């Protein structure tokens, strides 16, 4: 569980070989590329290639087909189309698009017809009950008839026009409209039409193709709508059939173009001078031999390996090395931020503490096993990243459940087993040992804090960060101060008087002064002269408050671990409630209450404990020794995403 060691690789060669080199780099899967221009500098004569990617337009066209059809075009083997020219591929894609557009146009036309017919059907359906032929109504010479809908509010205003020569009648009502028609003498139609327009009457223009009375017209329109729908369906079917036929070739072309496109994009990472290129990047040390062998057949290309930190302008990327147990927990570490190259990989520590703390809080043999199985299934079928973590913490919960003697909330089931085995100190009954649980939680918390501080001291000294590691609150001074107070207090509890003047001065006051003076002291250790910025007053004020914050931090951080005990008790209490409920219901309903209760407690408690443990990891542990400012190791590779920038 460490950080993968890296090598800085400098690659130089002739520009004519650049593309071939880039293909090898993206194929190898272990090369983290950096911008060579950054290393070469502006004055070195190197330039960066600024070219339009020639593969982008064609890729965009396939991407459009992909977006339109909702399909993904991809093929692992595109050797068939590798030799084809760009122009030839472009012509093929254009033809495919033309054909697809034909189907889409046919569908669109049918869709428009459907919309017209549906609209007419909707209107005619509201006129049901009108048994007169539409053609007859509209062919009246002296009377004009207008069909449509009138807002409910406007209907109430019609009485205002009592003196006007029209008659409105409605066939049906909706929430906001009256559907109907008004009759008006042809000679007055203009004035009345204006009135109805001012009342927001929405006129329905029955299309010429509608014949007969409302029932006949409705039946005819329903038939037309069905025909339109069939037409649309046929067009879609043809579209899909054609695409099915071309999908394989399109996939090969897309993959081939995308590979060339992404490799071409890498060209701007290279620096060019005359007819030579220069590429720089990192590879994991373990991959060195395999990587070097890739270029054996390219004589013009030379590779120079250097230590990862050889160039101050380039920060080595981070690849965490974890064992099988801790691997899933790297997700949490990455969430917080990766360590620096010379830092430590905290994944193992996180894996152990997270599993332990979760198990303690979630202790139940049955629920733990269920959680472990659920995690395994989630990983197997859904590749859910939390799955393996659930499996580990579930097993931990089961182990602690075994110690607590708790199975799905039944606290007495294991008692006979322990009795038979002659183990008298187990099971450890949670609800009968509340004080022990809470004190145990604090002791565990203090232990974890001590380990975190020790890690900080070791890494700080290794990286020559003396201020933090020797005199900081998470350094030796802090450790001595915090440890001495705890030891002294515990000794007092047991009647041993340790807190004499020498103890207090040497182990408590002196470390406190060291923390107060940590900045000048660290300069002194490094042999440098310290300049006080802002004057003595500013120095005292700022350090006083910082040290005060440290002291407050020790107290709150320690107490923060009480939550471990709190959740042990809350889990047991919730299960007690479930059991009490199950006893109050009928014998038939009791198992259902137990099952639902267990599911609820597992869900809610699992979530809470998971979050709280993560909180402890990030706030009480990571904050003591971890900065998370490393950059991830990202080897160059072809990204077969359809979205083209």
């Amino acid at each position, binding site marked *: 569980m460490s950080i993968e060691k890296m090598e800085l690789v400098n690659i130089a060669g002739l520009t004519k070989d650049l593309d071939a080199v880039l293909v090898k780099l993206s194929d190898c899967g272990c090369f983290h590329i950096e911008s060579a221009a950054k290393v070469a500098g502006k004055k070195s004569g190197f330039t960066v290639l600024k070219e339009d990617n020639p593969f982008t337009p064609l890729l965009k066209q396939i991407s459009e087909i992909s977006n339109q059809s909702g399909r993904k075009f991809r093929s692992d083997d595109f050797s068939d189309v590798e030799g084809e020219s760009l122009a030839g591929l472009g012509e093929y894609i254009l033809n495919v698009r033309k054909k697809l557009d034909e189907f889409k146009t046919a569908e669109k036309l049918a869709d428009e017809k459907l919309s017209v017919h549906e609209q007419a059907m909707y209107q005619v359906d509201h006129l049901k009950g009108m048994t007169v032929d539409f053609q007859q109504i509209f062919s009246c010479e002296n009377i004009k008839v207008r069909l449509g809908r009138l*807002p409910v*509010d*406007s209907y*109430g*205003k019609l*009485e*205002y026009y009592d003196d006007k020569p029209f008659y409105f009648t409605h066939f049906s009502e*909706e*929430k*906001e*409209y009256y559907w109907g028609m008004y009759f008006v003498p042809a000679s007055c139609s203009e004035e009345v039409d204006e009135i109805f327009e*001012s*009342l*927001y009457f*929405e006129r329905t223009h029955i299309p010429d193709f509608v014949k007969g009375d409302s029932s006949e017209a409705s039946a005819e329109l329903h038939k037309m709508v069905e025909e339109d729908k069939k037409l649309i369906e046929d067009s879609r079917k043809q579209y899909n059939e054609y695409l099915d036929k071309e999908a394989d070739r399109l996939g090969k072309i897309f993959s081939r173009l995308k590979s060339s496109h992404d490799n071409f994009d890498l060209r701007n990472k290279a620096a060019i001078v005359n007819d030579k290129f220069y590429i720089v990047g990192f590879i994991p040390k373990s991959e060195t031999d395999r990587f070097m062998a890739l270029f054996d057949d390219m004589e013009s290309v030379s590779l120079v390996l250097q230590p990862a930190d050889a160039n101050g302008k380039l920060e080595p990327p981070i690849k965490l090395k974890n064992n099988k147990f801790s691997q899933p927990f790297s997700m949490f570490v990455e969430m917080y931020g990766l360590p620096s190259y010379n830092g430590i990989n905290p994944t193992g520590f996180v894996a152990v503490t997270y599993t332990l703390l979760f198990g303690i809080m979630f202790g139940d043999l049955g629920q733990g096993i269920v959680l472990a199985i659920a995690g395994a299934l989630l990983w197997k079928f859904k590749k859910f990243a939390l799955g393996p973590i659930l499996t580990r913490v579930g097993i931990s919960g089961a182990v602690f459940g075994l110690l607590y003697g708790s199975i799905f909330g039944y606290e007495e089931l294991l008692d006979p087993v322990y009795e038979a085995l002659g183990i008298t100190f187990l099971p450890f009954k949670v609800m009968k040992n509340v004080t022990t649980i809470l004190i145990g939680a604090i002791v565990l918390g203090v232990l974890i804090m001590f380990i975190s501080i020790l890690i900080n001291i070791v890494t700080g000294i290794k990286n020559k960060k003396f201020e933090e590691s020797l005199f900081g609150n998470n350094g030796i001074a802090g450790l001595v101060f915090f440890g001495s107070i705890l030891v002294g207090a515990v000794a007092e509890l047991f009647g041993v008087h340790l807190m004499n003047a020498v103890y207090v001065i040497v182990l408590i006051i002196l470390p406190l002064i060291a923390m107060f003076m940590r900045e000048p002291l660290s300069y002194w250790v490094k042999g440098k002269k310290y300049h006080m910025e802002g004057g003595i007053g500013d120095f005292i004020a700022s350090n006083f408050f910082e040290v005060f914050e440290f002291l407050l931090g020790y107290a709150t951080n320690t107490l923060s671990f009480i939550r471990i005990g709190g959740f042990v008790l809350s889990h047991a209490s919730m299960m007690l409630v479930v059991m009490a409920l199950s006893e109050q219901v009928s014998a038939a309903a009791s198992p259902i209450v137990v099952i639902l209760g267990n599911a609820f407690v597992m869900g809610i408690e699992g979530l809470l404990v998971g979050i709280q443990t993560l909180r402890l990891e990030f706030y009480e542990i990571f904050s003591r020794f971890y900065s998370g400012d490393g950059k991830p190791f990202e080897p160059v590779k072809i990204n077969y995403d359809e979205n083209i920038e």
Partner: protein
Amino acid sequence: MFKRRNYNATVAKIMAIYGKRLTQQDYLEMMSKQSVQEAAEYLKKNTHYSELLSSIDTNTIHRGMLENLLRRSVYDTYVRITGFEHISKEEFYNYKILQTEIDEILRCIRFLNAGSEKLISDVPIYLKGLTSFDLIDLARVTDFKELLVFLKKTPYYDVLKSVKTNEDGKVDVTECETLLRTYYIKRLKSSLDFKKNDVKQFVSFLETDIDLINVINSYRLTAFFGATGDEIEKDMLPFGGRLSPAKQKEIYDADSSEEFIKRFSKTNYGRQMIENGYDINNLEQSANQLRYKYAKLMLKRSQSAPLSVYSFIFLLEIEVKNIISIIEGIRYGVESSKIAPLIIM
């Protein structure tokens, strides 16, 4: 009864509805629309107006109808919240009807003065039977004398009988408005039958609002009609708020709009506008923003139903006005950058 109960459920309901109000993002989205129909569709799909517009085909909706629907929604909401704990029978809650009656009479007077006949299309017909006069018959009135006869049996007759018509039969709308609004405020004040502290808070809000309405009207009279201080004073609502009579006189006496703003900026309200970053040169808009702010404050601080109802409906009306401004802006092709300053929030 009214004094004894708190009607906390009504207050809670109001806050729940208020929580669904339109946000700045909603206004921006609407302003970006190209047509009234698109804006209506946005309202229907994304806001608390979705139920109101559920049976409306936004593709064919007319702007006028949409505006009427939105205005009606304010009244529907008012009925909904006052009906929740059956408080609508208290006299105070008649204020909404009173307000609408006055608005309709004033609209009628404006139409009569303008000689227009389209009054009927925007009549709030949903209030038919609730008002003290028939709204359809009001729309049939053809001149001011007829209006007075029509209003004979209502309290508005006494309010308007002193108004003189000129030789064209037209009347001074500002005078009518002052008389009617004064009557409204007096009626409102006489109906404040609730807890002493709530009455105090409500009166303070009302007086502040009157101050700001007076500022808006006096500014208009100065800027657009060049009215003198004395002319302005007689058209103002005669209720003092935080502006002392001497201060009011000083502002009304300004001989130009610039001087008016200069004098007003030294008042408490003027300073608040500046502190809040409002554009004091756009006085009318800034005053409305301040009115909105005070109503919001009253709604948030109040635990009393009448105060909550009044301030909430006030805010809702402004929301509807904002939507109408946007819809009109879209209809007449106004750029969104020019519509945005009209939005009050």
